[in-house]
């Protein structure tokens, strides 16, 4: 199990840093090639020194490139890396250099990380610089332009960097598009699956619950003794809570909170409702991050309270106060409107579902007159995330 996980995580690292992996592999090969050529053939007077420099520079450069891979100024490091490689070519004294492959590896990161036009320009710039280095080595005799083999060799040396950069830039763009397309199709699949579940919940399960509720509610309570009466009431309230739960799930499946924090969503909703021009809504304070189910119900309760206030309270100002305390998070929606009708208010469907939701997540919901007996206040005390403190 551990071995498998390790293998998988290595693969993941490789996938995430695939271009750096390619750079490491090719650079090591390039360095080995250069060292071998230096030691086997006599290239300069200082072959052993150059070999040692190459052997040291390879890990140092790779380490430096790895460290700065994500930095904003990484292109400066890449440019220095390219200049250093060209410096090695120059030190070799000939543009047909054992360091050629090594120098080509400096193109990998810029080609794959920069926008493709910039990458191609980078490749062209590299070729130009290589031409300058070739001139500086003074190994370009005048007959280069007429000697086919010489000209072909020079052209290849100058052309390969452009081909390498263009190919890598193209692959990088393709990979990026592929990843985006895969992400998109996964999102779409998830969305359609959610729609399907929402539809099934609403179209089938909820209809059955409605039917059950209807049948139970048709029973004449006078035909029951005290205990039967209680059971009947319990069954009805459970069925109502089931409907409220399903409504939450359906709403959550159709417009998921997507793990976004409740206070952010509430601020958005408040801004939307404020736009209707009926009341001003202020959202004060913050909520801690809530578990998904609690978050979904808390948000729907608050959203319902806001809608009620805007629709029915004839208020001008609504204040949403969010708070985090050791005993649990609190959420209060207070308006300065007409308040609730006095006496035993027949609980409307909205209020019923708010209470049902609060019950589901084990929260305390208090709906009553606002501060100073004015308006309405809806206060929700959420349970402590770790249970009762």
């Amino acid at each position, binding site marked *: 199990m551990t071995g498998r996980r390790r293998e998988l995580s290595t693969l993941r690292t490789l996938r995430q840093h695939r271009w750096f992996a390619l750079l490491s592999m090719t650079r090591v090969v390039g360095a080995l090639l250069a060292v071998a050529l230096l030691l086997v053939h006599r290239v300069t007077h200082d072959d052993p020194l150059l070999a040692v420099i190459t052997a040291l520079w390879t890990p140092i450069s790779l380490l430096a490139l790895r460290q700065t891979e994500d930095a904003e100024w990484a292109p400066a490091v890449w440019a220095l890396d390219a200049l250093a490689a060209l410096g090695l070519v120059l030190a070799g004294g000939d543009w047909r250099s054992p360091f050629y492959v090594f120098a080509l590896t400096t193109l990998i990161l810029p080609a794959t990380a920069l926008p493709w036009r910039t990458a191609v320009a980078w490749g062209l710039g590299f070729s130009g610089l290589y031409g300058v280095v070739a001139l500086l080595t003074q190994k370009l005799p005048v007959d280069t332009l007429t000697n086919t083999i010489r000209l072909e060799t020079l052209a290849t040396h100058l052309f390969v960097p452009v081909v390498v950069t263009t190919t890598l830039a193209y692959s990088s763009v393709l990979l990026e598009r592929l990843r985006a397309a895969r992400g998109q199709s996964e999102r779409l699949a998830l969305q359609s699956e959610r729609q399907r579940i929402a539809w099934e919940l609403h179209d089938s399960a909820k209809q*059955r619950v409605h039917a059950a509720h209807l049948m139970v*509610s048709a029973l004449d309570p006078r035909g029951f003794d005290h205990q039967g009466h209680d059971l009947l009431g319990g069954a009805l309230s459970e069925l109502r809570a089931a409907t409220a739960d399903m409504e939450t799930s359906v709403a959550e499946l159709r417009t998921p909170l997507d793990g976004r924090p409740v206070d952010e969503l509430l601020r958005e909703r408040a801004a939307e409702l404020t736009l209707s021009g009926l009341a001003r809504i202020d959202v004060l304070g913050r909520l801690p991050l809530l578990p998904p189910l609690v978050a979904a119900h808390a948000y729907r309760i608050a959203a319902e309270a806001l809608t009620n206030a805007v629709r029915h309270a004839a208020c001008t100002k609504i204040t949403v106060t969010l708070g985090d305390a050791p005993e649990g998070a609190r959420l209060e929606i207070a308006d300065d409107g007409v308040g609730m009708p006095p006496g035993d208010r027949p609980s409307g469907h909205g209020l019923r579902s708010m209470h049902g939701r609060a019950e589901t997540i084990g929260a305390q919901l208090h709906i009553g007159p606002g501060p100073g007996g004015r308006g309405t206040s809806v206060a929700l005390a959420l349970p402590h995330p770790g249970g009762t403190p």
Partner: protein
Amino acid sequence: MIRLLIVDDHPAMRAGLTAVLRAEPGIIPLATASSELDLEPTLHRTKPDVVLLDYHLPGADGLKLCRRLKREVPAPAVLLYSAYADSSMVVPAILAGADGLLNKSAPAPELYDALRAVARGDRVLPPVPRELMEAAGQAVDSSDLPILAMVVDGTPISEVAEALRIPVRDVSRRLDGMIERLRVEIAAV
């Protein structure tokens, strides 16, 4: 004695409604229909006083069927029965000529009362909140506003036509247009 036709696409709902309403004195569930196709022959066979109509049916919504039922002579009373707890369907329901609108989560006694009320010719519609009426007014053509106002106020279509001095058929056509615009998208609820 209320002769009732039940239209709902879900078998559990049809069975539940039939069982519950059969036991209620004064109400006779004559038949059930599960779709638009099913409704036509059943309607002509049974000639009910009241149709209990699901708001959402596959292929056709309750509003469209309600309009058609109200064109029958004599037209049955229609109680729209909806699983959505949303007041935004009140205005379209009124325009479609529904005599009542009831949520499926209402307990059975509320359903009996609503059925008896619409059978008597009363309307069982929740009040239309001011902002809903304003929203509806903005969604429809301004030339349709008088029709909207009168119909929501409970004026029969024939009287609306008379008041505006236009044929009844024109009023009907414009009502259809308004319903189309105000239709509550099921997926958006």
